[in-house]
């Protein structure tokens, strides 16, 4: 019966993050070691369960097995680096057996450990790619192969990233804790960034033939929803969840019959997922209930909500969207925000208003290879009847994008601009 492996996968998916988080605390915060122990428990399950059947409480079984491995390891003195010496000393000082200590520790509520694990996996000491891989591995329970497939990179590359990330965390002696005070703001923003990067990798695939990879979006949403339960007092966590829920509501509508991209205003809104929109709006309400001013994610969510609330593209409250973009441009100024702000201004006050903002960005070095700038500029120019310039901009944008489907869309627009002219 090969179904047993699918069942074990499912159990792993449900239990692994809690398992690793609980273990990380009792082994002194070494998430690398905790993951190794959890993996050993998984191997034991893969060995035993096909004949013994899945135990009634598989999570407890995995935990008990990993615990035994930890105790065996401590006894054999095989894990004698700094941290494990410390555990040994602490255990001696308290005059308790390693078993008792581990049992007590593992019985505590695992929620805080999960939060510690998220903060550790997203620690700024790690490179962005390492944070993404480690988060998907430790929190998402994804295999190295799954992560490699998701990011279209070779399996050994991902494996190496994870090994290095674990080593970096150990060498930097990153404490297994929920950061406090001022540090917390920076660390939380790193966590949110990692989740949103995972989401965007799925939502607007930067490479390859697919326009979207919904599985990655679902993964990021799951992580965001978990975080919202663990840190309910953080407005930006709900802001990010709201943003992702509302953006994900459009996933099906963003892809045309032959896999081509369909832009927001051309989407069939009856295909938007009402359930996800409702969840997104509810998350936004949680932000608003927490405090008056909106952070960058909440502002983006509020913009997305304006679109979600409009039954037709014509009903969109563009004036409100320009106000929200003005807020975003103040709070988190970036050339990319300016491009989007320009689009909103063009919609609210005409293409000339948008062109004015975009032209102010000319020569911005960080946008030299940003395909959306010529794409948006081309759109304004086309609407202003400057078709030759428009066509050139669309062609420039097509040359810059790495996404094959998007390139096709841009080339079609270039051709269209040219055709109307002649």
């Amino acid at each position, binding site marked *: 019966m090969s179904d047993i492996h699918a069942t074990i996968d499912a159990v792993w998916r449900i239990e692994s993050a809690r398992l690793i988080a609980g273990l990380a605390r009792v082994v002194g915060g070494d998430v690398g070691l905790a993951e190794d122990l959890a993996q050993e428990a998984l191997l034991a399950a893969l060995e035993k369960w096909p004949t013994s059947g899945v135990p009634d409480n598989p999570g407890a079984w995995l935990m008990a097995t990993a615990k035994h491995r930890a105790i065996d390891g401590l006894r054999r003195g095989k894990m004698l680096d700094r941290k494990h010496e410390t555990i040994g000393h602490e255990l001696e000082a308290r005059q308790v057996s390693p078993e008792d200590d581990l049992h007590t520790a593992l019985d505590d509520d695992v929620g805080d450990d999960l939060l510690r694990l998220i903060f550790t996996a997203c620690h700024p000491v790690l490179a962005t790619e390492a944070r993404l891989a480690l988060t998907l591995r430790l929190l998402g329970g994804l295999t190295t192969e799954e992560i490699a497939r998701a990011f279209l990179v070779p399996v050994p590359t991902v494996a190496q990233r994870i090994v290095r990330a674990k080593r970096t965390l150990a060498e930097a002696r990153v404490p297994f804790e929920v950061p406090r005070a001022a540090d917390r703001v920076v660390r939380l923003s790193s966590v949110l960034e990692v989740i949103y990067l995972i989401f965007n990798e799925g939502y607007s695939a930067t490479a390859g033939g697919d326009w979207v990879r919904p599985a990655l979006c679902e993964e990021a949403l799951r992580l965001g*929803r978990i975080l919202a339960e*663990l840190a309910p007092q953080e407005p930006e966590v709900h802001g990010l969840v709201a943003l992702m829920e509302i953006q994900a509501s459009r996933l099906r509508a963003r892809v045309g019959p032959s896999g081509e991209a369909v832009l927001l205003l051309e989407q069939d809104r009856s295909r938007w997922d009402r359930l996800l929109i409702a969840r997104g709006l509810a998350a936004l309400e949680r932000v608003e209930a927490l405090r008056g001013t909106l952070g960058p994610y909440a502002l983006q969510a509020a913009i997305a909500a304006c679109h979600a609330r409009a039954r037709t593209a014509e009903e969109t409250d563009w004036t409100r969207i320009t106000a929200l973009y003005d807020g975003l441009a103040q709070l988190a100024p970036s050339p990319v925000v300016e491009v989007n702000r320009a689009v909103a201004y063009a919609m609210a006050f005409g293409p000339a208003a948008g062109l004015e903002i975009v032209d102010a960005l000319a020569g911005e070095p960080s946008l030299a290879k940003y395909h959306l700038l010529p794409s948006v500029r081309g759109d304004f120019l086309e609407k202003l009847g400057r078709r030759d310039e428009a066509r050139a901009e669309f062609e420039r944008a097509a040359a810059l994008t790495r996404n094959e489907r998007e390139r096709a869309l841009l080339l079609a627009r270039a051709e269209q601009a040219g055709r109307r002219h002649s």
Partner: protein
Amino acid sequence: MRFMMLVIPKAYEKAGADFVPPAELVAKMTKYNDSLSKAGVLLSLDGLAPPATAARVKFGGGKTKVLDGPFTESKELVGGYWMIQVKSQEEAIEWAKRAPMLDGDVIEVRRVTEIEDFPPDVRKAAGR
């Protein structure tokens, strides 16, 4: 993937119109709901009023006929549902196994269909 976990309480067809679940069960259920939320898989959930208070609209011969509950001759009536988002049917089944049910209760795990499940002519009929 989305799955609906349909709760089929034992002998629900015989429950009275005033049936309410016992507080103890509701407490366990709330805890379970929280665990789904904390795992980031819960999309929505609802409990349904007893079938004794329900109505059925039957179709036949181009006409409709309304039948009022209870429907004591029917079996396996739905009492409520959870909508979850998971990676596989097995994961949905694992979540169902963790639900605090009473002896004789059933949870039916059903995948939510997507338009991609259908052949082109059906998709076209749906305007997609």
